[in-house]
């Protein structure tokens, strides 16, 4: 459940919540890292739950050594009041046996906090795309009926592609099986989406097809895609690198090389 790290509980009424799904390539989480780091958001609380594997570390967004000594937990909420934006960052895997409960926890927290809309950043296995999906942009979106009411025009204007429904058993020409939503490698994304539809929550999913590897370009693509809609960064200069990479992204692929190797 949410525990504030300040003296009083913050208000999230009418805020937009951006959160990642722990999914293939960790793309959603990397994109959220970019958002928090660039907008210099401050932490306002923790989601303290037994559904995540515990981990702890110093401030991953610290720019200097002095303010780097602040303990951070697996699920934290950051806020930027002037943008009416709240961001939940999840840093640890969800325990397999507790995925359903974690989804319920999130849905009830979203409801009780009064967010005006929630955006889930996610990803899906690129190798499971069908022939149609192999062409064009790897970015997809999904919206719950509740959010569609308000955002249909904006989505149409941006020309985004909705996530396709796929037949349950491809190849079988059984007339009874209707196409259904499938997000392989997306973690709790599909569950969260269907739960939100049921609970009539305004929720959108933004996902990118990717594979495991160096997923930093995928994170940039997803963050830019989100920015096209929400306009989080006010920049008129079309410079490519407007996102600030946090210090925690160093050494993603291992230590320095021992000189004796050569």
């Amino acid at each position, binding site marked *: 459940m949410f*525990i504030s*790290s300040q003296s009083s509980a913050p208000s999230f009424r009418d805020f937009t919540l951006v959160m990642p799904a*722990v*999914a*293939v*390539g*960790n793309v959603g989480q990397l994109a959220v890292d970019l958002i928090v780091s660039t907008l210099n958001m401050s932490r306002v609380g*923790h989601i*303290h*739950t*037994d559904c995540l*594997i*515990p*981990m*702890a*570390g*110093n401030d*991953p967004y*610290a720019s200097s050594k002095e303010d*780097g*000594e*602040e*303990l951070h*937990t*697996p699920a934290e909420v950051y806020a930027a009041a002037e943008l009416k934006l709240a961001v939940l960052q999840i840093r640890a*895997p969800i*325990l*397999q*046996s*507790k*995925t*359903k409960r974690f989804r319920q926890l999130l849905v009830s927290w979203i409801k009780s906090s009064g967010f005006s809309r929630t955006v889930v950043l996610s990803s899906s*296995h690129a*190798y499971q795309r069908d022939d149609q999906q192999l062409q064009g942009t790897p970015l997809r979106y999904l919206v719950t009926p509740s959010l569609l009411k308000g955002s249909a025009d904006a989505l149409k204007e941006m020309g985004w592609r909705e996530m396709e429904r796929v037949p349950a058993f491809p190849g079988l020409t059984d007339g009874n099986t209707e196409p259904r939503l499938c997000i*392989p*490698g*997306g*973690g709790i994304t599909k*569950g969260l989406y269907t739960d939100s539809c049921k609970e009539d929550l305004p929720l959108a999913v933004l996902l990118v097809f990717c*594979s*495991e590897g160096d997923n930093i370009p995928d994170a940039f693509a997803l963050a830019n895609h989100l920015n096209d809609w929400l306009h989080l960064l006010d920049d008129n200069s079309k410079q490519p690198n407007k996102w600030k990479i946090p*210090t*925690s*992204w*160093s*050494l*993603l692929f*291992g*230590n*320095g*090389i*021992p*000189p004796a190797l050569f």
Partner: protein
Amino acid sequence: MATFFGEVLSVYSRAVEEDDDELDENEEDEQIRRELEEKREVHLHWSPEVSESLKSGNKLQCSNFVLAVGQNASSFLSVHILSTANWDTIGRASAWNERSRAVTGQSCEESACVFYRHKDNPTVLICQVSCYVAEDQLFQWTEKVFDCLQHRELNVTVLSDTSVADYKTADYLGGSSAPFLRSLHTSAFGDQPVCQSLEQPNIVTGLPAAVLNHCQVHRISAVVYQCYSDVIGPDSVTMETYKPVLTKLGRSIQLDLSPSTDALRKFVRTTDLQSNLYI
């Protein structure tokens, strides 16, 4: 996924496991799942006197809680602190998981997770954890233990062993630098740690992390001293690395600062051979 050579490989994701579509579980599956969960529950077994006290609603008065996670940390505490023989065993914790050695008939006699209380200063508690606590049991272990302690003016110190292979640094670590200490503390910790803070992008996992999370969220003063060592198993050099922590602990606890070599030898026995692959 097909490779260039035409073979088909299964793809693993570092982030998510294969998610099975949530089919409705039938009763039998649910029952099995529930039984398994019950078996994996963490149980605390206190001495009769402590149990009575807890049952009547009084939490354990505690000003200093020292937790040792790992063989070297536990042995260090045994040699330098518990050897002064002023300690009562007040309880133990048990957590069954896939790595627990199957002991037929009775429950583990040499318990891998024991709580001690100082005889003269009963607000000082020590806990040695040398067993494996699984990922899904970490939160529960921490909650259950801390539920028994009163939180006001509580100071928590955690000593933890880990491998230097997990330490990420831009400069190559020559063999000479291990073992070394790094610290991580909660916002409520007001003192100075005895060593450098853990640099990015390193993190702490396992029981020390679970304790830190709990203390951070509940605003308890806590510090973790993580010892990075290149030796698996008990080793006197690794144990000596924790010595600077004694200066902080020595304020409230009586210590043995220079233990005899016999005492050290008792703890640095050769590890049980699990396999003869590397003899």
